[in-house]
């Protein structure tokens, strides 16, 4: 059953993810890209802000480019939870009928978006890295497929809204325009139907900043030599202000925990700079990082596959090069 | 070389190869370094049903035999022969029960051995009884419905970790070699204890300890076969297990050859891979040919052992002798191909070379194998001339 396109749908929406009272970086990126699309369509850019005691964020969102902010501020929204957030977003979309809904491709976004899109029986494109509009005003959503070996542009021509999750760090953040105002719409939600309890939220002492959102990632592989040398990778990350990542081999060997694993069975990252230290570059690793803007490879073996995708290649002992690099950075 | 394995044998080989590659190889160097018994891998082998392959179906096995066991041992040995021998030694401990056990004994012990729930071990060697089996001093004295065992067995693979021991002890000193008997002793029996873990040159993942029997009292139902059969039990068991030692040797050699070939392709000296030098090529060619010849001999002996043909002592001895000598030579050459790197622990070939040596020594030194072969030759010739 195809939804009739009366074209009554209007506007570009950005779902606002926030942590500890702060707007997530990816939201500012979405506001920038959303602004561009909204302008092209000649329609408003709106934010969906769900949370508890978050109303104060709506003026920030307006300064970052939102024309409208829909706010549902209830105690139950204290922490992110799929059940209630999905119900609320579904309700808001059905009520206010946007044309496009953009959601950050974070753990939460990638859990929320498919639930909502399925309820609405509409299309959803995952981890987009590029947007455009075709002549009929359909959203052209481009995403990497097959581990980044192929780019696919997806359309959702006959269903609304057009929904997409967006890979963090691909778009630049919107600039703040102090004093910019918009319309705040406080919404009343129907009765909530909880299915889960969040018993605990634990921030693990990750080494360095959050891998998913880092601009710079320094990764270590088996070629680093041993767990005792992995510290070098951490020190380099610290010197560069980046996050620490690792290949599967060293996670399996227990040098660092799984949350740092990049690659096919770990995380996918697309930072501005990725420094691969002692990583040979098996395809399973490459699929997790080859969208990085600049790739530096440091490896003893000049024939290591990692060099085939590296912007800069350094052949030599990781244990000598990293300290030299740290020294260069600090001088 | 194509050995025309059945679908089931192919499955066994591939599964063992997968476990060797995914679970054994990554920890082989660590097991060697720490001299740790590979319990975790033993349980993976058990879950994969690999202890079942050589056990008849009526005792929870999959109905294969020596050949299937050899396939598993060979694949495991490519990654770590310390692991392989721990696996194979359970077979060494179990074959006496399969060959000479009563139906009751088989039903009692074989299902747990087949499932890998319990490991077995074979205790023959003593401080003063190595090649000379007739010199064993451990005694078993009948006392009512029991036997009481006293003595110390030496260099027993799986000792301490195994739960089922077949022990050869003297029941009648006056009868010499025909005065020994085989007994099943379970771990936990009062009077059974284990000596310290031996420090070895190779196969360091496997545990090798003394089995100490001090007034160890076992019921007479634990006698295997009848009194006086001890020596025969040992010899017939070795006929079944020597092809397995051969398979272990072939596996180590193949593992070393694989490393050497890959290294020769990648190592560049004088601006070309060393595999382009004839000196290296000839070494690799000889290593490969000898390994393949050893495999052919081992597979033939294993198939003979399963076929039920009469005397297989000569074939089993030849397989063990030839394969172990090849293994020693190939691993030494593999270290040579890798040069200085081969001598270092970062590369696996020095371990393979250390592991290789034992295959020339245990389950009868290669000198004993030659004696067996020569003795059989003379016997065969005598039989012919009598006709």
């Amino acid at each position, binding site marked *: 059953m195809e939804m009739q396109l009366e074209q009554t749908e209007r506007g570009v929406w950005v779902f606002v993810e926030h942590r500890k009272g702060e707007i997530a970086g990816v939201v500012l990126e979405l506001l920038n890209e959303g602004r561009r699309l909204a302008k092209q369509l000649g329609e408003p850019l709106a934010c969906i802000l769900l949370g508890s005691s978050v109303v104060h964020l709506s003026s920030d969102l307006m300064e970052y480019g939102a024309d409208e902010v829909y706010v549902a501020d209830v105690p139950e929204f204290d922490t992110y939870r799929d059940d209630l957030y999905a119900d609320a977003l579904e309700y808001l979309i059905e009520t206010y009928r946007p044309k496009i809904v953009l959601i950050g491709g974070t753990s939460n976004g990638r859990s929320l978006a498919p639930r909502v899109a399925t309820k609405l029986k509409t299309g*959803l494109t*995952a981890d987009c890295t590029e947007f455009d509009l075709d002549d009929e005003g359909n959203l052209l959503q481009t995403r990497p497929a097959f581990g980044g070996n192929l780019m696919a542009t997806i359309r959702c021509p006959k269903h609304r809204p057009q929904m997409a999750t967006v890979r963090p760090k691909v778009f630049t953040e919107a600039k703040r325009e102090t004093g910019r105002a918009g319309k705040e719409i406080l919404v009343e939600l129907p009765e909530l139907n909880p299915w889960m309890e969040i018993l605990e939220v634990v921030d693990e002492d990750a080494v360095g900043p959050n891998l998913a959102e880092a601009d710079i990632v320094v990764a270590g592989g088996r070629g680093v030599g041993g767990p005792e040398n992995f510290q070098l990778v951490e020190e380099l990350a610290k010197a560069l202000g980046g996050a620490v990542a690792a290949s599967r081999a060293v996670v399996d060997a227990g040098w660092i925990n799984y949350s740092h694993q990049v690659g096919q069975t770990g995380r996918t990252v697309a930072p501005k700079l990725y420094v691969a230290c002692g990583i040979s570059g098996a395809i399973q690793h490459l699929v997790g990082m080859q969208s990085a803007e600049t*790739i530096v490879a440091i490896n003893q073996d000049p024939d290591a596959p990692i060099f085939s995708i590296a912007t*800069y290649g350094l052949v030599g002992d990781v244990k000598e090069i990293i300290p*030299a690099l740290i020294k260069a950075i600090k001088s | 070389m194509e050995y025309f394995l059945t679908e089931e044998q192919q499955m066994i080989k591939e599964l063992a190869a997968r476990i060797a590659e995914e679970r054994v190889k990554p920890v082989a160097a660590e097991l060697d370094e720490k001299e740790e018994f590979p319990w975790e891998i033993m349980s993976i082998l058990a879950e994969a049903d690999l202890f079942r392959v050589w056990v008849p179906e009526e005792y929870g096995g999959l109905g294969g035999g020596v050949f299937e066991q050899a396939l598993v041992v060979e694949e495991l040995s490519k990654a770590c022969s310390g692991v392989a021998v721990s696996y194979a030694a359970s077979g060494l401990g179990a074959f006496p029960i399969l060959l000479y056990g009563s139906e009751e004994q088989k039903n009692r012990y074989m299902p747990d051995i087949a499932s890998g729930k319990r490991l077995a071990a074979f205790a023959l060697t003593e401080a003063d009884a190595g090649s000379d089996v007739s010199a064993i001093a451990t005694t078993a004295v009948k006392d009512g419905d029991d036997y009481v065992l006293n003595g110390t067995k030496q260099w027993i693979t799986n000792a301490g970790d195994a739960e089922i021991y077949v022990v050869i002890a003297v029941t009648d000193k006056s009868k010499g070699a025909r005065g020994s008997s085989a007994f099943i002793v379970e771990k936990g029996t009062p009077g059974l204890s284990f000596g310290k873990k031996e420090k070895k040159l190779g196969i360091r993942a496997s545990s090798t300890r003394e089995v100490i029997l001090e007034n160890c009292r076992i019921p007479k139902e634990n006698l295997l076969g009848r009194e006086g059969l001890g020596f025969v039990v040992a010899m017939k068991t070795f006929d079944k297990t020597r092809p397995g030692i051969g398979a272990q040797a072939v596996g180590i050699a193949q593992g070393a050859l694989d490393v050497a070939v890959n290294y020769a392709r990648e190592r560049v000296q004088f601006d070309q891979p060393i595999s382009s030098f004839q000196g290296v090529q000839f070494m690799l060619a000889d290593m490969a040919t000898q390994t393949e010849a050893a495999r052919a001999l081992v597979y033939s002996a294993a198939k003979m052992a399963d076929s039920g043909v009469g005397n297989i002592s000569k074939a089993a001895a030849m397989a063990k002798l030839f394969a172990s000598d090849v293994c020693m030579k190939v691993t030494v050459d593999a270290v040579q191909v890798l040069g200085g790197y081969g001598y270092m622990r970062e590369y696996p070939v020095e371990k393979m070379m250390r592991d290789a040596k034992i295959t020339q020594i245990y389950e009868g030194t290669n000198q004993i194998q030659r004696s067996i072969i020569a003795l059989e030759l003379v016997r065969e010739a005598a039989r012919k001339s009598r006709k």
Partner: protein
Amino acid sequence: MHIVVCIKQVPDPSQARIDRETGLVIREGVDKIINPYDLYALEESLRLKEAHDGQVTALSMGPPSAEDVLKDAVAMGVDHGVLLSGRDFAGADTLATSYALALAVQKLESVDLIICGKQAADGDTAQVGPGLAANLDRPHVTEVRKIRHIEEDKMVVERLTDTGYEVIRLSLPAVITVVKEINEPRIPGLRGMMRAKKAQIPAWDAEYIGADPQRLGLKGSPTRVWRTFEPTRHGQGEMLRGTAGEQAVLLWEKLRGRL
């Protein structure tokens, strides 16, 4: 308890190649394997089965060749395999896929838990798990790294987040998707492999699960691939020369301008 594991057959990602002329993925000559993430889902279901005396059904949608991955699942120890196969299912996006899988789950008896891998290695969308839950109108938790325990009609799980983890209690039946950290998948044993060879895998079609053909396959998929193309490759990179120290200094000169 009855656990359903959803698995997918995918082209081996390590052999992925693209036809430079058409920009399409070459599927010929590429081994088809079980989606690597699904092995963790299977392993977790088997551990739950062993701990709670349950049964496990593996469910897959795909061409007839997908029977192979269901047999792999049987070899690992699942009790039954079910294949959704037929022309109606072809060309499905994640919406149509989760619709079909939901109907198949409803066809099975009293399902308590559905486990999926975090995502499929060919699509990487991670959308089918949550979509399946939405279709079933049941809760879901993604990226589960540990099942703490199961209560009567609830379970407590740890969910990996971008900054750490959360502990969540959710009502059953439910859908969870699991990450690699949750377990180490077993290698199937010989008896399992032999059982798998003989196993009959029923194939269910659209009619059997009572599906609306308009919501299946390409017809039921709101998203359409408009075009595919090769990503702009990093050009042949620059290899720096010199000693370790020299290379390091050179690199930093090049990088500092970019950061």
